[in-house]
């Protein structure tokens, strides 16, 4: 049985009242949703809270899932909308305490430090936060989740041509920010070094 059939079966079982079937979906996708939330929100606690809320939303709306679609695409749609809502609810457009804490030595290291312990990786994560949220979303879906344009369009509710435009601008912005931060200088027009 392939992955999509597995997942459709688990969804059907959950809808029939078997919560353990939904537990399998949670086990499979907690990491993916956490990565999406952390890349978007740049705050470990927010990302953990978001993961819980996203799965509760998915559970509540499970009847609206179309089994002909991939479950992961449907779940990432909920996750993306949730993260953007959360970002918009953050009223301060200026630096938050969490942003400041990123630059300070801390005894409570975030997952970026715990899991990666690599300064350059953290630089990219910081650079991502400089992108407007709609650009950040498509960049994450493309380069971190490795999704096709059609899937990104489905998740974000945008057209494929808009996705391509946002990716083009997102790439330029990210390359410029990384170059300003002392990284390799890339020709952002052609995206070559």
């Amino acid at each position, binding site marked *: 049985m392939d992955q999509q059939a597995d997942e459709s079966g688990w969804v059907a079982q959950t809808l029939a009242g078997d919560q353990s079937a939904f537990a399998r979906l949670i086990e499979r996708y907690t990491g993916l949703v956490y990565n999406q939330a952390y890349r978007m929100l740049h705050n470990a606690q927010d990302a953990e809270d978001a993961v819980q809320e996203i799965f509760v939303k998915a*559970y509540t709306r499970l009847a609206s899932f179309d089994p002909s679609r991939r479950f992961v695409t449907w779940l990432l749609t909920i996750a993306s909308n949730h993260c953007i809502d959360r970002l918009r609810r953050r009223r301060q*457009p200026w630096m938050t305490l969490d942003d400041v804490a990123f630059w300070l030595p801390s005894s409570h290291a975030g997952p970026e430090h715990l899991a990666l312990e690599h300064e*350059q*990786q953290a630089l990219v994560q910081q650079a991502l936060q400089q992108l407007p949220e709609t650009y950040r979303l498509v960049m994450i879906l493309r380069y*971190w989740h490795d999704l096709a344009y059609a899937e990104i369009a489905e998740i974000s509710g945008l057209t494929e041509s808009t996705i391509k435009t946002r990716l083009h601008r997102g790439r330029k912005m990210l390359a410029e920010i990384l170059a300003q931060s002392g990284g390799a200088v890339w020709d952002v027009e052609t995206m070559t070094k």
Partner: protein
Amino acid sequence: MGRRDYDEVASAEESTADKAMRRLLAEYGHPAPLVPPADLTARVLAHLPDQPPSVVAATVHTVRRRWQWMGSLVGLMLVSLLSLGIWGVFGNSSGPSSLVGGIASNAGEFMLVLVLAAKPLMHVLLSSGMLVIVVGMLIITMAAWLWWHMLQRVPLASPASGL
């Protein structure tokens, strides 16, 4: 999760830029998966409602409908009060009180007191205070516009700003 390139019609430039972006990210060690906290899955599971999804969805729907009804009811009450106030202040002063048993009843007397208290205030505002109302409305509108643009519509970070 595999990228399904077969359904994409990417131009040569897009394809080159796409590959170059991946090379650039690779130089920085990305995409690197983050490991979620070990207990996160258990916490998510513990956070799930006990009832099946259909029951939860029905409950959410009922609560939402209830809030909509309450909102409509409050709105209707406000409109009714406003209408009664306008009727009392600009029309018949004892009109609203006549709806609740006339001025002989406590409720009617209360209504009449409210109308009589509001009447001079409204007349002052509408005669000499019109400018105050206009300026006040203008300030409120400007403040709301500023609030919307500064706090709601500004991107969280300016793309032009560096690290």
